[in-house]
């Protein structure tokens, strides 16, 4: 005979304060987990699934990000003009751009400095980004002049970056002539003519070459060919691979952090729920004796208490999700340690994350309840009766 679920639910409501505090302990664990992972999710979404397999990124061998890469003008030109795998447009120009990249200090509107990516572009750069890139205000910059266009979050968060403002880079004033949006991390950048940027910043190296590949190009072959090239040794990756490599540090740290926090807090939560369930069993000792005496099986008693603790876990899961749900969509900024630049993104709570949180809470409840439930099931009716 199984005990009705009602029995377990009634127990929870009788000891509601204890159950609630236990559930809250579990909720805190889940909230911290979901909070950190939603941060990671938001960050990852800037990069993940945005890469295109037919766009290639050329970096210096050994470099994993633009900041570590460098090509002299000479080498960049060889890549731009002579690579057979690069597609050409209707006019026969290669669909490729050599770009400069610099994580530059900028002052935030709310105060304090942060690193914002300055990208020097060539005309093909804009076309290469395709539909992901949209101009929302003003116009595109005119090449050969000291003009920049800025990503929307930069325009909002940084000093001197609104449309019409003048942004001074080292000694040279640049005029902000347009604001763009980009679904990826590029949305948080400042773009200007690469030549003008090099001049203004007194630099002589490009950081990467980006190019659209001819259909059917095998990027592995190209990569192998250029790896030890005598004239331009280069590391070639598809945009997919390249973007995936831009999240490794921060994502790894956030994932590791979430795991450590969940495990440690989970242990505490399990101990708490064990406490509550032991008290619940203790208070019901006499009742358990009666149930055993009238013929309920030990298993049904075990299950009744396990269900009780699973309910507490589920309640904790629900509360935990409720705690983090308001964060969904909240904009925040973090340093991407791969590129050393500030990226802005939103806490992102996916259905999958909600499910995972629930499962964690559920498991915490059940793990905490197993021992007390076993203890209840192992009671001898005689002893149970003797207890007050």
């Amino acid at each position, binding site marked *: 005979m199984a005990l009705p679920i009602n029995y377990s639910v009634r127990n929870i409501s009788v000891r509601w304060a*204890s159950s609630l505090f236990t559930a809250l302990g579990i909720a805190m664990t889940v909230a911290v987990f979901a909070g950190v992972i939603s941060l990671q999710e938001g960050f990852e979404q800037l990069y993940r699934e945005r890469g295109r397999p037919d766009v290639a990124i050329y970096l210096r061998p050994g470099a994993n990000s633009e900041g570590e890469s460098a090509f002299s003008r000479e080498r960049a030109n060889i890549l731009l003009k002579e690579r057979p795998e690069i597609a050409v447009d209707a006019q026969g120009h290669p669909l490729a751009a050599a770009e400069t990249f610099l994580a530059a200090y900028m002052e935030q509107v709310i105060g304090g400095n942060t690193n914002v990516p300055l990208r020097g572009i060539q005309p093909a750069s804009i076309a290469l980004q395709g539909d992901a890139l949209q101009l929302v205000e003003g116009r595109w910059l005119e090449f050969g002049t000291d003009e920049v266009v800025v990503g929307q979050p930069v325009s909002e968060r940084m000093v001197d970056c609104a449309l019409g403002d003048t942004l001074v880079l080292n000694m040279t004033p640049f005029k902000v002539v347009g604001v763009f949006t980009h679904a990826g991390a590029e949305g948080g950048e400042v773009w200007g003519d690469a030549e003008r940027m090099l001049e203004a910043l007194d630099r002589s190296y490009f950081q990467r070459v980006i190019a659209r590949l001819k259909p059917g190009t095998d990027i592995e072959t190209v990569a192998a060919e250029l790896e030890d090239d005598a004239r331009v040794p280069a590391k070639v990756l598809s945009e997919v691979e390249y973007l995936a490599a831009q999240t490794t540090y921060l994502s790894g740290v956030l994932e590791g952090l979430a795991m450590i926090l969940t495990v440690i807090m989970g242990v505490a939560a399990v101990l708490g729920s064990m406490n509550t369930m032991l008290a619940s069993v203790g208070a019901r000792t006499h009742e358990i004796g009666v149930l055993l005496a009238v013929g309920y099986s030990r298993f049904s008693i075990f299950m009744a208490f396990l269900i009780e603790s699973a309910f507490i876990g589920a309640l904790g899961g629900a509360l935990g999700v409720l705690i983090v749900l308001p964060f969904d969509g909240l904009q925040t*900024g973090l340093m991407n340690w791969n590129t050393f630049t500030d990226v802005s993104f939103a806490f992102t709570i996916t259905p999958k994350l909600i499910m995972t949180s629930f499962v964690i809470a559920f498991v915490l409840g059940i793990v905490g309840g197993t021992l007390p439930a076993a203890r209840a099931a192992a009671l001898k009716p005689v002893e149970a009766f003797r207890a007050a």
Partner: protein
Amino acid sequence: MRTPWRLVPRHLRAHWVRTGLTAAAMMVAVFLLCFLMSIVTVLEKAVSESSANRVVPQSAVSLFVELPLDYHGKIAAVPGVENVAKFQWFGGYYRTPEDFFAQFAVSHEVFFDMYERDMRLVEGPNGPVGASGLSADEVSAQVIQAMSDNRRAAIVGQGLIRDFEWKVGDLIPMQSVFVPKADGSAWEFEVVGVYEPLKANFDDRTMFFRWDYYEETCNNAGDMPATGVGTYSVTIEEGYESGEVAARIDALFANGPQRTWTPTEAVFQATFVAMLGNVPLFVSTIGGAVAFAIFFSVVNTMLMAARQRSSEAGILKALGFRNGVMGRLMLAESILLSLVGGGLGVSLAIATQEPFRQMLGAMLPQYAVLNETAMIALGVSLLIGVIAGIGPAVTLSRLKVTDALRSEG
């Protein structure tokens, strides 16, 4: 105000399972709290212990833009400047890129003078301090001598010696991503000395090597010539104000070719920490959640205890103890429980410092549970004990004797 205090430990012992589970839950949570707080305090300490007597001229545009080499002489000529050293981030790795640690090319001629208060040389070419009667001064002198005799000489922190099992005299091959050699071969450094950091702004996993070796290797064998200096480090002559000297340096280069920004070392560290993202806010939010979790677990325990304590409250009051007696006992029980759990947590955090420091590795080489962190964690435990105890304490104090005696124990 007589209170039979002995009841407090008796009750905790009588319900030892509950006490044990609560204390254990608190232990892990307070341990976590200590861990999180330590991360923040270590970052803050690096800022607060940085020298106010040193300023760091660097590009006003970006951390990654170099200053021209000829700024060295110009900065040295500024009134109030005592010493100038060049610093360059080498960005190399030993064995694999994952074995990350910091390496700097520095002007070794002045480096030891400028940083004598931040680190101590503990081992030189002739052995560690103390071995065969070597004094600290002798070891320092030997290291400095070896550094000027040997172009490839480098000094490394104790952490690197420990983590990579290096020895003085070892030849260390390193690859650099920033300044690779044209033929792809490795740079080579020879360990001539080991330092121990004396301040939190200095970590024990850094390698310092000679600037001239860096510059010459880049120019002769590098993929690209050495074109500039990452940052300069400047000590201020006594009697001068660091802010004024810094302003003079910045004014000197206001018209280029590279504008400079000359923060004090402390401000530079603070900016660097701030750029890591809002770590303190992030960590305190999580810490808050952890504190709440602890709170819930203690409150729960105290509620359970209070439920069983009403007949006892009745007896004590009937005997002539004042109304508050049970409240004080509950509060004391809650505080004692929290302090025991918190104390265990703090002890665990202190005991596991070393493995955690190693786990964090390059991210936070100075990780340590400082005394002040331990005190704060105990303070938080105490506070949680007080707040968790107040509810049951008030309830039991308010309970009428007749009701208390009627209810079941």
